[in-house]
């Protein structure tokens, strides 16, 4: 294979270096970030073209053959995640270029964003467990700084919680890697999978697997390990929250899916059962917490937790159909969540607040923005024919086929409560008359139409995932098939021996 699998890592690195060289030139940084993001998107599209028939792209870094060298592996799940990163990168660069204050840009928002993208892409393409840990640290370091950048009081307090819990999870992850290495003598995921499947060390494997559930559970915001998320996500500027909500927790979810379909797939009864229970509680606690909040960004932040529950539900059920649902849900939720945060950012810019008690009458003033919000919100709740509906439907059918009645009931109930939260925002911010006349801070800010560009783009994607559900599901179906047959991954990496 060519150098292609390493490009999603190299391009953002190059962009970040260029941005740092242009430290004083803000305009140049904006252009570099946008161009780099565009290239990431194009490359991920190209990679997707190559892998969409089920080919697994493998690259041995430095030509050290697996399992001795570090391997980069792109299967269909990785490639769809790379595509989502590309889509997000372009939108966020456009939005940040127009919305972010120059102070934050001066202190390095764009290079940090690109380093974050490098870490995320690295985590998606690596085929080595320790390398996964390193990429996690890369993206965490970038996210720590992005979160604290600006140094407002709430930001710093949120950062402390975020930093402490994420470092704890990294230490757990590292310990898990150590024990796994002591047991198997390798860190290449494909070879690890082989060793574990020979199945001599049942108890030890289960213990390490639970450590991994804990470590990735903290990173992806799974019940009961998600408390850092609502404390830290609503504190930085909206565009940073949008970036985090789309990518950070999803890397944790991706790691869980990868590890628990490839390596720890021998004891689904207990391990995936545990994930399923966690998924149900995650959905429920997220959506219930959202009901008590009256600030748009806080509602959306705790909803991230609840959406993680749906994604994990597919992994917990561990059937091909359920994983298909998980893949579609990932695509849907990354775009929708980012879009909702970006819209919340526009509301904040227009009205100066995100507090539902103080907002009102937005529908009368901004019908266009209202419709954009409504589409994303309804998609999150799962109203047909938008993207969320098909994803949820698949998960629920998978639950019914697996006869896990309880999780199906929980998922349906949570879906209803999500609708409640979304209509709450709609009713308070858009429909009810404004309680007091909030001055239009920025009646028509000069860059506003630029802010709307990514929002409109994402809305189009949300609608088209719903309208072109056929091809999307064909893809997800193949991706799930690949995940359910780890032999193909092992053969691609180890060359069939």
């Amino acid at each position: 294979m060519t150098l292609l699998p390493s490009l999603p890592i190299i391009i953002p690195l190059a962009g970040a270096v260029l941005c740092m060289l242009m430290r004083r030139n803000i305009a140049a940084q904006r252009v570099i970030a946008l161009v780099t993001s565009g290239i990431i998107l194009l490359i991920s599209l190209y990679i997707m073209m190559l892998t969409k028939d089920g080919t697994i792209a493998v690259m041995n870094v430095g030509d050290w053959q697996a399992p001795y060298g570090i391997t980069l592996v792109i299967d269909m799940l990785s490639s769809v995640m790379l595509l989502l990163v590309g889509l997000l990168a372009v939108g966020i660069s456009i939005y940040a270029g127009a919305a972010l204050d120059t102070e934050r840009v001066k202190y390095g928002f764009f290079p940090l964003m690109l380093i974050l993208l490098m870490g995320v892409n690295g985590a998606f393409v690596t085929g080595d467990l320790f390398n996964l840990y390193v990429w996690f640290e890369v993206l965490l370091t970038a996210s720590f700084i992005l979160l604290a950048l600006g140094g407002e009081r709430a930001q710093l307090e949120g950062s402390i919680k975020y930093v402490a819990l994420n470092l704890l999870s990294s230490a757990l992850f590292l310990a898990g890697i150590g024990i796994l290495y002591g047991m198997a003598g390798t860190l290449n995921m494909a070879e690890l999978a082989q060793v574990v499947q020979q199945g001599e060390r049942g108890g030890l494997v289960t213990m390490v697997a639970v450590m991994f559930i804990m470590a990735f559970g903290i990173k992806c915001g799974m019940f009961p390990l998600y408390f850092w998320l609502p404390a830290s996500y609503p504190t930085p500027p909206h565009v940073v929250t949008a970036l985090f909500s789309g990518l950070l927790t999803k890397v944790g979810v991706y790691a869980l899916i990868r590890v628990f379909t490839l390596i720890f797939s021998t004891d689904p009864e207990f391990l995936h059962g545990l994930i399923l229970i966690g998924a149900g509680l995650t959905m429920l606690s997220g959506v219930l917490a959202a009901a008590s909040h009256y600030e748009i960004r806080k509602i959306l932040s705790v909803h991230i937790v609840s959406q993680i529950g749906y994604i994990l539900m597919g992994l917990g059920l561990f059937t091909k159909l359920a994983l298909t649902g998980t893949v579609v849900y990932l695509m849907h939720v990354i775009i929708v969540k980012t879009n909702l945060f970006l819209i919340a950012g526009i509301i904040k810019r227009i009205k100066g607040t995100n507090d539902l008690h103080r907002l009102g009458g937005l529908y009368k003033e901004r019908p266009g923005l209202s419709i954009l919000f409504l589409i994303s919100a309804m998609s999150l709740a799962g109203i047909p024919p938008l993207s969320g509906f098909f994803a949820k439907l698949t998960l629920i059918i998978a639950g019914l086929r697996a006869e896990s009645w309880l999780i199906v009931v929980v998922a349906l109930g949570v879906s209803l409560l999500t609708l409640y939260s979304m209509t709450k925002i709609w009713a308070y911010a858009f429909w009810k008359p404004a309680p007091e006349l909030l001055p239009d801070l920025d009646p028509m800010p000069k860059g506003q139409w630029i802010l709307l560009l990514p929002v409109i783009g994402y809305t189009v994607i949300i609608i088209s995932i719903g309208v072109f559900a056929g091809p999307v599901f064909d893809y997800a179906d193949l991706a799930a098939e690949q995940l359910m047959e780890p032999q193909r991954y092992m053969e691609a990496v180890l060359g069939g021996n």
Partner: protein
Amino acid sequence: MEILLAIVVGTLYASGIYLMMRRNLVQLIIGLGLLSHGANLLIFIAGGLRSNRAPILAEGEKGFSTVMADPLPQALILTSIVISFALTAFALVLFLKTYRIVGTDDVDEMKETDT
């Protein structure tokens, strides 16, 4: 030797977690440090403890005939020490900045984000 080191790892984890649960920011960061030391030592033991078995082939020797020390865990530890050094440095700066702005180092007083 393994048992002794296992006890050391356990102690490091226990003291790390204990310190993390204290309310003081400085103790929190010391706790994080101890925790990462614990994890590093764990990897070291997991690779197997052997003395006087350098992973270097003697002249004329073909292939590893005797059991040698595994160099990989040490490479892993080196990587993770570098990472945790950087993160500790960042956390220290963050905590100092927070102390200056919030005016306290008591974690329980930081309730701005809790509502």
